[in-house]
């Protein structure tokens, strides 16, 4: 759905006051004032190979429904976006890792007993959304059986010149964790986590067809950052995993967009580097190509590479209880690299746009650029397929 550029909308909006008969509702006649989109997706993790697993090797399966409504209010002076998501999760997750008789890791899964729902609602309110200088206030709430999160944020975009736009903002989130079966499994019964984030970015218009954006982001998490369900094989015993109660993370990112108007295509190139005081650092490179084929058809293939070096306290298990403070075998804290390949097909039909896509994600320790050699037995591979539609209303 083609919308006029923000600068054109601003011109039309200002002209409407002078020439109401020509520009009556000019800011909105060429674009829908409300855009609604719905997407259904099916996320399916590959089962782990039976040889290296104790328990049912079938892992997570998530079906999600997502509804977005993006509306312009008061002749485009304000924008309101609302997102509602509902997910149904099932399957088992990695529980702990045991050494076999040769010291090789055997993954133990929690058993296919988990069945949970997550519901989330978020809203963002923007002043002057059609101009390049605007402010967005956002709030969100997400709840599932054992977890809830409440967040609020503010961000501002400011045109420094026709070529340069500054963006900055911050957010705060308060999460509450109430693990299920806490008493039976000796888990913590109730814990909280707070996260504060800030970001700043600069976007340059390099020439008539390319834009470069560079930014930094800082996050600080404090509170219960441990996964209450995971156990760790520590010497002769199994103990709940333990992580520090604070984590500071910094990230830098660069985005490049170039359009090739003569062939109705554009290139998106993104790079992100992140590191934290847990010793974890990562590189992400993503390239995607947006290709139009006329008659409203658009095809978007994308490739993403991710490489992560493990947190200092990651290891699959400890053969000897050596008095260390922190220990976790969560595969998300290990060393690995991953490729994600995806393809998205879109077709515009008047005010409707239909889309469908598929993504394959494959991770392996050997794909990492650097990091410790501690084995990561529960690395995930998944398929994700989705389909949905957008529709515009006046």
């Amino acid at each position: 759905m083609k919308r006029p550029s923000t600068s054109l909308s601003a011109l039309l909006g200002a002209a409407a006051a002078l020439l109401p008969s020509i520009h009556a509702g000019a800011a909105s006649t060429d674009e829908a004032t409300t855009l609604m989109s719905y997407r259904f997706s099916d996320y399916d993790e590959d089962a782990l190979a039976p040889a290296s697993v104790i328990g049912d090797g079938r892992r997570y399966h998530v079906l999600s429904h997502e509804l977005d409504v993006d509306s312009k209010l008061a002749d485009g002076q304000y924008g309101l976006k609302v997102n509602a998501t509902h997910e149904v999760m099932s399957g088992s997750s990695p529980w702990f890792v045991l050494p076999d008789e040769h010291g090789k890791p055997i993954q133990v899964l929690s058993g296919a007993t988990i069945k949970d729902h997550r519901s989330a609602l978020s809203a963002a309110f923007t002043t002057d959304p059609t101009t390049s200088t605007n402010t967005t206030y956002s709030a969100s709430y997400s709840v599932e059986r054992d977890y809830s999160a409440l967040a609020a944020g503010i961000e501002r975009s400011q045109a420094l010149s026709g070529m340069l736009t500054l963006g900055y903002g911050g957010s705060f989130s308060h999460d509450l964790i109430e693990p299920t079966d806490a008493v039976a499994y000796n888990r913590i019964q109730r814990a909280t986590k707070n996260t504060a984030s800030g970001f700043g970015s600069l976007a340059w218009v390099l020439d008539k067809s390319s834009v470069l954006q560079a930014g930094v982001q800082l996050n600080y998490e404090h509170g219960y950052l441990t996964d209450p369900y995971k156990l760790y094989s520590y010497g002769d015993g199994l103990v709940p995993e333990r992580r520090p109660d604070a984590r500071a993370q910094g990230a830098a990112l660069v985005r490049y967009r170039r359009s090739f108007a003569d062939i109705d295509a554009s290139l998106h190139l993104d790079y992100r580097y992140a590191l934290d005081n847990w010793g974890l650092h990562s590189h992400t490179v993503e390239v995607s190509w947006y290709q139009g084929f006329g008659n409203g058809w658009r095809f978007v293939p994308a490739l993403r590479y991710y490489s992560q070096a493990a947190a200092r306290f990651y290891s699959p298990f400890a053969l000897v209880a050596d008095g260390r403070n922190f220990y976790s075998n969560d595969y998300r804290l290990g060393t690995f690299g991953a490729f994600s390949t995806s393809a998205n097909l879109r077709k515009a039909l008047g005010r409707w746009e239909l889309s469908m896509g598929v993504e394959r994600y494959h991770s392996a320790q050997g794909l990492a650029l650097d990091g410790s050699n501690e084995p990561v037995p529960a690395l995930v591979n998944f398929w994700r397929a989705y389909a949905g539609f957008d529709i515009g209303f006046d």
Partner: protein
Amino acid sequence: MRLYRFAFSSMGCPCEVQFEAEDEATARRAYTVARAEVDRLDAKYSHYRSDSWLARACAGAGPDHTVDVDAETASLLDFAATLHAQSGGMFDITAAPLTRLWDGRNERLPTPEEIADARARVGWERIDWQRPRLRLPVAGMRFDFGGVVKEYAADRAAVCCRAAGVVHGVIDLGGDLAVVGAHHDGQPWLAGIKLPSNPGVPCANVELPRGGLATSGDYERALVVDGKRYSHIVDPRSGWPIESFASVSVIADSCLVAGAASTLAILLGTDEGAAYLEGLGLPHLCIDQTGSASGSIARL
């Protein structure tokens, strides 16, 4: 249906209206109201007439000088504020004292003192604008709607023609065009875009079924000192000229928006101006100082 043409002079430029009407009386009535509207706006906003409303509003600028403006002027000021924001301060309705220093007739470069003196009286951000009250806080400060008002007048004239019963026609105020309505058989009006350096020969022909076409350019005689050319386009933030296109033409739903886009593209300079036009997505033609063309409108 017959074609009727009326030529006149207003806003400091040659003007022409063309109508298709059943009879001459209808066409002449439309011409009369269109011309009256253009003359009204010229009398109100002319910056070279000492008896204009604008001249009176600017007279006596100083710390205690405020003017309560009417709704039309207020909307023009709001429009100017939008252009100022969108151009990062390059479009500035208070810039006249600076622009005048770089007039080709001066035959010498302005002195740093002259530039500093003019800059002290320039800057939209210095103006206190709280609709409907305008305060020009610096003595000698003034504003004008150059780059906007002629285009607005073309659109207003077209609106008045429709109200007078003529629905097929085009208004041409010195090359800025507003369409009253397409030809009676539905065909678009054909308009030639002219080069500032060679106004006799069109460099592109465009079809206009509705809306408007505006051209902005570095027309005025450039200041040439010691063989170096100084353009007439002045950065109000530095007080110095910038190199830009010789001419930019834009087509939009109104002459006003077309004029705003072409004026901003000229003020932003060649690279930034081209990127701005590309971002707007409106049909445009840019001619640079060497005469070479770029943009989505094909050159002849």
